[in-house]
C-alpha cells in the first residue's frame, strides 16, 4: 500500500488550516458592500397571515429593505419541492403541499419564514425584524403524527386531506399474514423512534451575491452538495438558470444530512440581493437551527415477527407512521420508504416481509434524512424485536441471530435489496470476544454486590450505502440520478488536481482521495490537490450523503485515473519506443517492464503539454473526466455490543463498555474510518440516552437550545473499542462499502437492549433518560 497509499493511516492534509484558525466557512466570507439578513419567523405553529406592516422597521437605522412572501411570489420564485415521487398503494401520487420560501398566506410551523430584513449590521437587522408587525389569525395545530391522522385533526395543507401524504406498502402482505397465522411463536412490539435535531456544530449560513452587470448570482452556502443546490434552485425555484448561478460550499462544519437540502434562506438571500442591490449574508443562530434545520427520525411502528418451531424467522410485518413535519423537504419521502423498508430484512433470511408506511403532515419543522436516514429506524425496529423474541423464546440473543443469519451471497431479500457480500457471524464473534461476552455473568454479580444493575445488549445492523444505481432509483421515483463525477487534471509539471463532485464536511476527502491517486501513480500525496465544493470549478456532482463518497465518488476518480493512465502509457510507449502493453506506472515513474528504460512521471506529463512528440493524431494534454454510476448499493454491516450499569436509585445509565465490529469492505484510511465510527456511535448513543425533540401541544418547540436539548458531551461517553471484519464489495473498483453512518445505525438498539436487560423491563422508549429508566426499573422491582 505504500506509506501514503490505500490502507495507510495518513494524517489529514486539511488539518493544519482547521487547527490554526484558517478554515474558511460560509460565515467567514466577506464581500465588498455586504449587508446582513435577519428573518422574521412565525411564532405560531399554524396561523393565517392577515397582513404584514413593515413601515416601522423600514424607518429604523441601517435598514435597507424588508421583503415578504407576496413580493417573492410576484417575482416568480418557485415553491420548494420534494424530489422523490412516492405513490400510495392505491396508485395515487404523494400529496405535496405548497412550501413557499417566504410564507405568503399561511404559516405551518414555529420558525416558518415570513419576511427578510436586510440592514447594515446584524444587530440592526434583528432590531428591525422585531418591529415588523405581522397580523396572524391563529389556527389549531397538531404536532404528533398519530394525532394528525385522527378525525377532526387540524388540516394543514388543502392538497393533503386528513394530513396524509401517502399510504405506501412494500412486500407481500398475504404471504406475511399467512406465515404469522401459522407461526409457532409471534413476537409483537410497539416502538417509537424519537425525533432528533442534527445539530452540525456550524449553523447553516448563506451569502447571496447578485452581480447586476453580469446578471449573475453567486451563492455561498453550507451545503453537502452544491451542484444539487444549483440544479434545484435553477430548475424548480426559478432563481436563475444554471449558467447564471454559481454555488460555493466552502469549508462546511458538519452536515449529517441536514445540509443536503435547499432551504428557503439560500433562495431568499439570492433574491433579496437582487432586490436590494447589495450582497446579503445570513447566519442561523442556534435557536434558528433548532427551529428550521430538518429534523430526523420520528416514527411510530407496530411490529409482528413470526418464528417456526426451530426459532427461524418466517415473517415480519411492520406498520409505521412517519411524521414529515409541515412541508415535504427535498428527500423526505424516500427516507421512511426506500431507505427504510428495504432494510427490514436486516442480516436475516426472512421469507416474507410486509411493511406499510403512512407519512403525515404536522405543524412541526420538516423531517428529512439525518445520519443513517431510514436505516437506523429499520435497525432499531429489527434489533429490538429480535432481542425481545430471544427473551420470549428463552434463547440467547446471539444464538437467535446466528440461526437466522444470511450465509450465502448474493442474497435476494423480499424487500428489493440484493446483498452482495458479507460475513455477519465474523463480526458477531469478534464483538462477543472483544466484549468478553462469556464473562458477563460474573461482572453482573460483582455489580449487583455494589447495588448496581448491569446489563448487556447487542445489535446486528446492515445498511445500504453507495447511493445509488441511477436506473434503479429512477424506477423507484427519484427525480435525480445518483452517479458521481470526477476529473483528474495532470499539470505539465506532473502535479495533479482531482476535481470531485463529492463534498467533504469533515470526512477528510482531501486526504483519502489523494491517497487513492498516490496509490495508483506512486506520487506523494502532497503533489495531489483535491478540488471540491464549487460549481464553477467542478464540472458536475451529486454531493455527499448516504456514505457514498468512497463507493461512488472515489470510483469516479478511479475511472478518470484509468483514462489518464491509458493515455500516459501511450505517450510513454511512443517516447521510449516500446510497446504500450509493456508500460507500467509505479513509484512516480513510467517504465518499460523488463528493461531499465523509464521516464519520470512529470516528463510524460510535460510531453503531453509540449505536444512536440506525441503519437500521431493524439490530442495534447493529460486531463480526463469520468462519470461513475454504481451497479448496486453497497452493504456495510456489523455487530455492536454495549454494556451498561444502571443505578437503581437514580435511573442513571453508565456505559461501561462499547464494542463495534464492522465490515466496511476495503479501507482507504483506517484512522479516518475509526473517526467516522466514533462519531456515529456518539450520535447513536445520543439518540438512545439523551436527545429528543419536544414540541408542546400548541406546537412550540421546547427543545430549542443546547440548554434544553441534550447533546452528547465528552463526559457522557466512554472510549470505544473497534474492529473490522472486511469482505470487499464486489460491485465497485475499490471494494469499499462506506462507513459514515454505521455508528449511528448500529448503536441505539445495542444500548436499549443493554438497559432493558439490566432493569428486566422491555418497555422503554428513547431517549432512556434517568427518569424513564428509573420508572421502568420500579415497574419490575
Amino acid at each position, binding site marked *: 500500500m505504500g506509506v501514503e497509499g490505500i490502507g495507510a493511516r495518513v494524517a489529514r492534509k486539511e488539518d493544519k488550516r*482547521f487547527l490554526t484558525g484558517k478554515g474558511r466557512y460560509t460565515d467567514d466570507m466577506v464581500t465588498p458592500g455586504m449587508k446582513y439578513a435577519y428573518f422574521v419567523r412565525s411564532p405560531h405553529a399554524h396561523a393565517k397571515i392577515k397582513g404584514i406592516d413593515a413601515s416601522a422597521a423600514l424607518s429604523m437605522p441601517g435598514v435597507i429593505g424588508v421583503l415578504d412572501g407576496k413580493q417573492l411570489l410576484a417575482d416568480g420564485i418557485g415553491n420548494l419541492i420534494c424530489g422523490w415521487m412516492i405513490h400510495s398503494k392505491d396508485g395515487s401520487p404523494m400529496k405535496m403541499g405548497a412550501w413557499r420560501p417566504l410564507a405568503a398566506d399561511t404559516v405551518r410551523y414555529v420558525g416558518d419564514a415570513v419576511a427578510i430584513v436586510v440592514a447594515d449590521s446584524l444587530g440592526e437587522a434583528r432590531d428591525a425584524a422585531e418591529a415588523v408587525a405581522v397580523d396572524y389569525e391563529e389556527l389549531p395545530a397538531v404536532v404528533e403524527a398519530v394525532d394528525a391522522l385522527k378525525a377532526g385533526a387540524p388540516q394543514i395543507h388543502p392538497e393533503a386531506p386528513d394530513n396524509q401524504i401517502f399510504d405506501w406498502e412494500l412486500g407481500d402482505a398475504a404471504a406475511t399474514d399467512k406465515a404469522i397465522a401459522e407461526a409457532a411463536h409471534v413476537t409483537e412490539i410497539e416502538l417509537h423512534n424519537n425525533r432528533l435535531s442534527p445539530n452540525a456544530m456550524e449553523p447553516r449560513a448563506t451569502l447571496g451575491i447578485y452581480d447586476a452587470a453580469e446578471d449573475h448570482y453567486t451563492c455561498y452556502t453550507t451545503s453537502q452538495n452544491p451542484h444539487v443546490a444549483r440544479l434545484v434552485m435553477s430548475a424548480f425555484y426559478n432563481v436563475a438558470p444554471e449558467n447564471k448561478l454559481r454555488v460555493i460550499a466552502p469549508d462546511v462544519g458538519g452536515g449529517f444530512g441536514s445540509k443536503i437540502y435547499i432551504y428557503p434562506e439560500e433562495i431568499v438571500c439570492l433574491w433579496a440581493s437582487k432586490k436590494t442591490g447589495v450582497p446579503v449574508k445570513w447566519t442561523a443562530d442556534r435557536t434558528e437551527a433548532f427551529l428550521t434545520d430538518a429534523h430526523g427520525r420520528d416514527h411510530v411502528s407496530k411490529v409482528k415477527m413470526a418464528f417456526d418451531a426451530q426459532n427461524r424467522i418466517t415473517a415480519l410485518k411492520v406498520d409505521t407512521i412517519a411524521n414529515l413535519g409541515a412541508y415535504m423537504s427535498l428527500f423526505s419521502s424516500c427516507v421512511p420508504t426506500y431507505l427504510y423498508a428495504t432494510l427490514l430484512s436486516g442480516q436475516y433470511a426472512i421469507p416474507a416481509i410486509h411493511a406499510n408506511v403512512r407519512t403525515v403532515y404536522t405543524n412541526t419543522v420538516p423531517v428529512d434524512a439525518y445520519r443513517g436516514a431510514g436505516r437506523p429506524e429499520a435497525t432499531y425496529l429489527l434489533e429490538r424485536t429480535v432481542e425481545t423474541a430471544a427473551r420470549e423464546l428463552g434463547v440467547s440473543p446471539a444464538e437467535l441471530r446466528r440461526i437466522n443469519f444470511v450465509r450465502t451471497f448474493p442474497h435476494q431479500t423480499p424487500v428489493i435489496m440484493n446483498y452482495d457480500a458479507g460475513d455477519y457471524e465474523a463480526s458477531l464473534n469478534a464483538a462477543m470476544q472483544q466484549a468478553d461476552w462469556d464473562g458477563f455473568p460474573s461482572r453482573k454479580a460483582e455489580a449487583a454486590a455494589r447495588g448496581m444493575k448491569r446489563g448487556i445488549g447487542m445489535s446486528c445492523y446492515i445498511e445500504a450505502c453507495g447511493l445509488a444505481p441511477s436506473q434503479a432509483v429512477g424506477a423507484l421515483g427519484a427525480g435525480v440520478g445518483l452517479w458521481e463525477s470526477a476529473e483528474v487534471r495532470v499539470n505539465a509539471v506532473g502535479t495533479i488536481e482531482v476535481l470531485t463532485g463529492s463534498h467533504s464536511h469533515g470526512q477528510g476527502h482531501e486526504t483519502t482521495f489523494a491517497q487513492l491517486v498516490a496509490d495508483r501513480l506512486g506520487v506523494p500525496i502532497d503533489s495531489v490537490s483535491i478540488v471540491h465544493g464549487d460549481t464553477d470549478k467542478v464540472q458536475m456532482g451529486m454531493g455527499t450523503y448516504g456514505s457514498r463518497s468512497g463507493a461512488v465518488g472515489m470510483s469516479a476518480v478511479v475511472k478518470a485515473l484509468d483514462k489518464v493512465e491509458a493515455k500516459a502509457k501511450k505517450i510513454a510507449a511512443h517516447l521510449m519506443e516500446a510497446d504500450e502493453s509493456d508500460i507500467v506506472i509505479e513509484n512516480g515513474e513510467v517504465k518499460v517492464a523488463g528493461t531499465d528504460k523509464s521516464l519520470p512521471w512529470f516528463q510524460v506529463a510535460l510531453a503531453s503539454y509540449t505536444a512536440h512528440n506525441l503519437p500521431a493524431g493524439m490530442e495534447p494534454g493529460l486531463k480526463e473526466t469520468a462519470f461513475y454510476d454504481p451497479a448496486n448499493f453497497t452493504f456495510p454491516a456489523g455487530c455492536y455490543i454495549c454494556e451498561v450499569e444502571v443505578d437503581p436509585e437514580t435511573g442513571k445509565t453508565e456505559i461501561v463498555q462499547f464494542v463495534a465490529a464492522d465490515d466496511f469492505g476495503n479501507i482507504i484510511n483506517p484512522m479516518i474510518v475509526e473517526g467516522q465510527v466514533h462519531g456515529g456511535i456518539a450520535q447513536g448513543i445520543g439518540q438512545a440516552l439523551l436527545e429528543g425533540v419536544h414540541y408542546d401541544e400548541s406546537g412550540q418547540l421546547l427543545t430549542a437550545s443546547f*440548554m434544553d436539548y441534550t447533546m452528547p458531551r465528552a*463526559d457522557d461517553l466512554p*472510549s470505544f473499542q473497534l474492529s473490522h471484519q472486511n469482505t470487499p464489495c464486489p460491485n465497485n473498483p475499490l471494494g469499499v462499502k462506506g462507513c459514515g453512518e454505521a455508528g449511528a445505525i448500529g448503536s441505539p438498539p445495542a444500548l436499549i437492549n443493554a438497559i432493558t436487560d439490566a432493569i428486566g423491563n422491555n418497555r422503554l422508549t428513547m431517549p432512556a433518560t434517568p427518569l424513564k429508566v428509573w420508572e421502568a426499573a420500579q415497574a419490575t422491582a
Partner: protein
Amino acid sequence: MAKVTLTVNGRSVSGECEDRTLLVHFIREKLGLTGTHVGCDTSQCGACVVHMDGKSVKSCSILAVQASGSKITTIEGLAANGELHPVQASFKEHHGLQCGFCTPGMVMASVDMINRHGGKLDEKTVRSELEGNICRCTGYHNIVKAVLAANAEMNAAKQAAE
C-alpha cells in the same frame, strides 16, 4: 459606540463597536480573525473559547468593552514561528478533528486545561473538563486521546527543561 483596546496575539489593536458587541463578534468582524467560531447562543458549545489574560473564556459570554485592556490569544496566535503548538500537533496526529468547526475552541480549552492541571490529567478528568465544549463529529474519543498525549508531551518537555 464604545472604544475597545486589546492586545490580540501580541499585537495592540483598537476599534469602535456597538456597546452590545460581544468579544467574539469583535474578534471575528472587526479584527477579521475568523478562527474563533460561534456555534450556539447560550454559551454551551465552546466553539468561541479564547484565552483572556492567560485563562480560557467563552468569548460569547463577555462584551468586547468588558475585555478592553486585556491580552487575548486566539487560535490564530497559538502556533509560534510556524510550528504547531503541541496540542494542535496532537489533535492532528490523533485525528482529534473532523469538520474543524469546534476545533479552535477545543484546542484553546485543552491548552488551558493542561496548563491548569500541571501534568496530572487522566481520561475522566479530561472528559469532565471538556464538558463545556461540544463536538458533533468525533464522539470525543480521539479528542481525549489527543489531549492526554499532548499533556504527556508538554509535561515531559517541562521536566526536561527543569
